[in-house]
Each structure stands twice: as C-alpha cells, then as structure tokens.
C-alpha cells in the first residue's frame, strides 16, 4: 500500500521491519511462518523484547510507555510485526485492560499494574462473555457483592482465551442487581490464584485448547481491585471494545497468509504446471488479493480520518472493517486448504514423520485446523450480524 504513504511513513515502516526481523528471535518467527502456534514462552519473550525497546505499548499514554505516534504509525507497527511473523503483544494486556486502567484507573492501580502489564509480567485474560451473555453482553449475571473491604464474586465466564496461561482476569461483574442492565456493571481485576477460581478447558473443533470456562465460587476480591467507579464498568467495556476498530482486521496477518499460500502453490504441481499457474486457482487468489487490498485501503481511510478528526466519532466503516476483514481472513484460511488438498486431511500434532517417509508439505499440519479455528473470526468482537446491525442503524438511522 506504499502509494498511500508518505516518504516518512515508508521509512518508519522500514525501521519497524528491520527491528522485527533482527531483534525478535528467528526461531520464533520461522515457526510462526510455518503456521505453528506461538507458545506462552514465545509471546512473553517477544513482548519483553518489544517493551525493552518501547515498542510493546506505543499507543498507551507516554508516561506509561506510549510513543505518541500517529494512527498510521501505530498501524504500520502492527502490520510490520504481523508480516514478519512476530507474535503480537498480548492483546488482553496491551489493547484491553492496559488502556482501561490507564484511562479510568486511580494512580495507585496504574502504578501497581501498568508496568507489569506492559512487560507481560502479568498475563491477563478477559472475563466478559457468559453462557447466557454473548452478543447481549449486558445481560451478564456474574455478581460481586460488597462485604467490608472485599467483593464476593459468584458466577461463570466463558470463551476465556488462553485463560489456562493467565495470572489475572479482568471481569465485568454485576454490582447492582436492581439497576437497569448496563448501569449495574463494574470492572473488577481478579487474581486467578484466589481460592474459588476454577478454570476448565473447552476443546475446539480444530483440536486445540484456546478457550476456557472460568468459574467463581465465593471468590473474595479486595475492593481496591475495582477499576474506576462502581457501576461504571459498561462504559469502560465500550471504550475497550472501541479500541479494536482497526486492529481486529489484522490485514498484515492475512497478507502474510496469502504470501505463504502463493509460495506453497508455486511448489505444487498440477499436471505440467504449478497450481499458481492454474487459471481457476489464480482467479480465486487474485479476487481475494483485490478484496484484501481494498480492506487495507479502508483501514487507511479510517486511520486517516482518525488522524484528522480524532478517534471519538463512531464510524460505520469500522464495522465494515470487522465484517469484511473477518470474511477475508476466513477466505484466506480456506485457500490454504485448497492448496494442500489431500495432504491436509490427516490430523497431526506435529510435522514429525517416521524414518524413511518424505517430509510433510508446508501446511499439512495446520491448513484444516486453521480453517476450522478461524470460523471464530465472524463470531467474536461483535458477531458479523451485530456489525450489520450497527451499519444498518447508522445508514437507516433507527
């Protein structure tokens, strides 16, 4: 997308590229490039290197490690990271709880949590969704009842991503059962090691363990772990979800995926030519590339508007980004399955094969699991039906 960028912005992107490809261990990046999942250790290692160089939380307030960058610079930083197959800083820390604490927390709670959150000394997970509170998040039922200097928490959270690796969880809890549904919710930080917290894994159709259920049974939480005001948590949650506007598209990741698809397709023989030269395959690929280029340009348009008018204004184009961006992410995963064909069918934990067997094709292990896994993209962060409703409301004004 160089044609849209200024000379300075291109130089900035180049600087980011150099950083990511020289400072983040090649071992981590090459495993991610082959489609492997980042381990907890990979994510911690790379976030700490970034944090050391001031690149883990560039969008935070400058006193807490922010860089005062433009929206475009922040975007280029994230893009170059993904294109270099670097595990991004943990979003629960840097995109979610960090900005909420930095914006709404007391000085005390900021000092207590922000440095450790930036450095991933604390691994956070998100306690928002409940079995009966999905798209209708405000109907959540987990309660926190004040008793002296403590809240007593009871209830259940679900779809808690990487909760099995988490030290702390930031939760939306109901503190006023009598208030109207959005008004009685608070934003509470809970140490996962507190007695009464139980994590139960949910196995997903890709065979992996990415999400969990978290149960709270008479969990006693110090009242000082409340962020901001009691019963104002819904506003903080809306602020947090608003931060996902452009990042959730992760165009860089889709572009990296497409590059990989092209590389493997160029090595895949079909009759006397390669799959990349097959007209039907190439047409499908090209159409996807066009749409991805369009969404990238749409991201830049949103960032450009943000740079000129600030980020406060809700813009239905943000919903376009989520809706279309997730569909394109999903299409890209599907195309990798097309490339692998029969080689994608076996379920394998690793790419290891017994002696004497040929090496597995790149993608053989991850193509189908990734396709299955990414069905999530049109469900999370406001399902695509919720996004359509937001767009429809904005244009039809109902």
């Amino acid at each position, binding site marked *: 997308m160089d044609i849209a960028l200024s000379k300075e912005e291109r130089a900035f992107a180049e600087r980011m590229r150099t950083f990511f490809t020289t400072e983040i261990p090649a071992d981590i990046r090459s495993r991610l490039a082959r489609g492997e999942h980042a381990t907890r250790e990979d994510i911690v290692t790379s976030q700490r290197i970034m944090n050391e160089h001031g690149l883990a939380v560039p969008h935070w307030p400058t006193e807490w490690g922010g860089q005062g960058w433009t929206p475009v610079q922040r975007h280029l930083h994230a893009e170059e990271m993904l294109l270099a197959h670097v595990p991004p800083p943990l979003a629960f820390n840097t995109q979610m709880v960090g900005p909420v604490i930095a914006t709404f927390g007391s000085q005390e709670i900021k000092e207590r949590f922000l440095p450790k959150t930036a450095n991933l000394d604390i691994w956070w997970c998100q306690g928002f969704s409940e079995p009966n509170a999905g798209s209708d998040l405000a109907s959540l039922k987990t309660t926190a009842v004040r008793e002296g200097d403590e809240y007593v928490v009871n209830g259940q959270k679900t779809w808690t991503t990487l909760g099995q690796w988490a030290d702390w969880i930031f939760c939306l809890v109901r503190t006023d059962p009598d208030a109207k549904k959005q008004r009685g919710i608070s934003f509470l930080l809970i140490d996962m090691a507190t007695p009464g917290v139980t994590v139960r894994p949910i196995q997903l159709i890709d065979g992996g363990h990415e999400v969990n259920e978290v149960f709270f049974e008479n969990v006693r939480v110090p009242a000082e772990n409340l962020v901001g005001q009691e019963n104002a948590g819904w506003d903080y949650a809306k602020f947090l979800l608003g931060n996902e506007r452009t990042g959730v598209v992760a165009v860089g990741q889709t572009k990296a995926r497409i590059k990989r698809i092209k590389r493997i397709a160029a090595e895949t023989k079909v009759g006397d030519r390669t799959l990349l030269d097959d007209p039907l395959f190439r047409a499908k690929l*090209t159409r996807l590339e*066009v749409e991805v280029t369009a969404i990238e340009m749409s991201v830049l348009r949103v960032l450009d508007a943000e740079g000129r008018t600030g980020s406060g204004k809700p813009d239905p184009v943000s919903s376009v980004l989520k*809706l279309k961006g997730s569909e394109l992410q999903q299409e890209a995963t599907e195309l990798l399955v097309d490339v692998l064909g029969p080689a994608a069918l076996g379920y394998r934990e690793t790419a290891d094969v017994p002696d004497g067997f040929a090496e597995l094709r790149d993608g053989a292990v991850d193509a189908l699991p990734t396709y299955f896994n990414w069905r999530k993209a049109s469900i999370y962060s406001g399902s695509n039906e919720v*996004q359509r*409703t937001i767009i*429809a409301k904005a244009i039809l004004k109902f």
Partner: protein
Amino acid sequence: MELDLTDEQRMLADAVKSLLDKRYDANARLALLQSDEGWSRDLWKQYAELGLLGLTFDEQYGGAGMGVGELAVVMEQFGRALVLEPFVATVVLGGQLVAAAGTPEQKAAILPGVAGGERLLAFAATEANSRWSLTDLETTATQSSGSWTVSGEKIAVLGGDVADTFIVTARTGDGSIGLFLVSGDAVARDAYKQQDGLGGADVLFTDAAAEPLGSVADALGHVESVLDVATAVLCSEAVGAMDRMLWLTVDYLKTRQQFGQPISVFQALQFRAADMFVSLEQARSMALMARLALADDDIAGRRRAVQAAKIQVDGSSRHVGQEAIQLHGGIGMTMEYPVGHYVKRTAVIAKTFADTDTLVEAVGAGGGLIGD
C-alpha cells in the same frame, strides 16, 4: 498520508456538484434523455466555462493544467448525476490521447477547440473480433504518395454518434499499430444510444483520409497509458453512481410503508442494505487507490492498481445495483424512477475497456497484488 481531497480538488468537486444539483435532477435528466440529441449542448458550454473540458491540458492549449486525479474528482460527481454529455469520449479519451501522442501542431490545432467546447472527439479502437484486445485488429492504415487512408469497421465507439474527429487505431503496412486522426465527415456511422443513454456508434472507415497522431511507434504506449487513466476515472464515476444507489435505497426503505410500518424495520432488508454499504466502501477504497496510483511513476504498478480497482468496483456495482432494484421492488424496474438508470450505467462501465475476467487474468498473470 493524505487521503482526503486537496482544497483545490474540493473546490472543483463543489463547483461541479453545484452546477449539476441545479441542472441535473432526475426529471431534467429524463427530459434530456428524451430530447433529440439526448444530451445538452448548453451544459457542454457551461462545462467549458468551468474549465472541465480542458481540465488536464496545458494552459498553452487552452487547458487548466490540472492533474489526472482531478479528472477522477469530476467523474465522481458526474457519476452521481449520471451525466449524459460525451465527456469521457471527448475529454478523457480523445483529449488525453491528443495531449499525450500529438505533435505540438496537432495539439495546437485540436485541444483549444476541445477545451472551448467546439470540437467533439471519439476514440475508435474496438472491433467485432477484437473483444478487449487493443492489438487484435483488422482495420488498416495505408500510406501512398505521402498521404494516409484508413479502412475498417469499429464498434462500440463511445461518442461516435457526434464526434467531429475520430482517433482510430489501425495496423500499418509494417504490422505496427498506430493512432490516426480522421474527420467525422470522412466516415459512415451507425449511430445509437448505448444501454445507459450515452451516445455511441459503429463506424465504417472506407479509404478515409487520415493523419497519424504523433509517431506510429509510440502510439500503443500512449493508448495504454490513457486507458489506465480512463479506467481509474470510470471507477470514480461508478462510485458516485453507487453512492446514489445506496442512499436512494435507504431513503426508500425508510419511507415505503407495508404492513402498516416502514419496510426498514425488517431485518432481512436492513442486513442487505448493510451489505450494500460494505460493497460501496470497498469500491470507494479501491477507486481512491486508483486515483492515487495515477500519480505513480511506476507504470506497471499503476496499471496493476487501476486494474485491481476496476475488478472491485465492477463487482461492487453489480452487487449494489442488483440489490438496489430488489430492495425497491417494482418501482426500481421503471424508467421514471432514477435507480434503474444508475444500474444501467454501472452495467455498461463493467463492460467498458475490459471486463472482470480479463482484468483478473491480467492481474493474476502479473503476479498479483500481494507479494514479497
């Protein structure tokens, strides 16, 4: 990064919009469509006065000396109003071909008349058997005792019904392809209105007296380059048209009552309107990219961007257009209601210069858009 219009571009857009708001509402346009010529010579003069007809020509030839990006800005407004005047034929294609390929004498002879609104041009390239190819042609140019003649039949010549001067592609004796100027008096025309109401013609050249436009050796490069610009500005025109289709549809959903309530309360319709918005925004992004790409010195990169833009824009306008009619119901099918006219124009754009399959093949064969 600067994606918004410049102040100068915004002023240009506002000036065009304010003229069209006054003169080109749906009823005025319908009346024009049904008039003898099908467009307005009076408005053509006003475009000349606004400087639109010489927008990109050098000032020494009566032009305004603006860039091709400004053409896109004008065309988006033209798309909103569905302008019927032969602007693409005369200014975007003909004028730019003369400006790019012509000798100084030819530019001096032709461009001031174009900028002033006195001379209409048409670019005749397509033939019955050429489909989207610029080089697969049978029309010949023959030189004898110093003068040239052109023979052959061209089809789908935009603005060919009224052109004073034709710019024709033809194969010369040595097999190369040149551009030739032929007077409108020297041809036979089968004139018609295109499906979208714009004028067109099939044109027969029979030993028609001709003059090479610039040098034959450079002709094809100039044609390709002007078509890149033309493709990019058609993308802008289509985005203008699509934007109108979306908002006409939205307004209709809010006002049309059935079952005692506005039909905008039905989620089946809300979601389809939302998807139209998505398609429009994707197209807007790519038309913007094409406009920015026109300033790119890298010819291959610029062509790829423009081709990609048209793939997206044509796909989006098909979706938006079909849905616009469906969500309107029967009224969308009528000549008296504007939305169908937008559908017709964008359907023609989708088959102008190149169609989607051809563009997808071209972009794919060139290695695509995303690479190392």
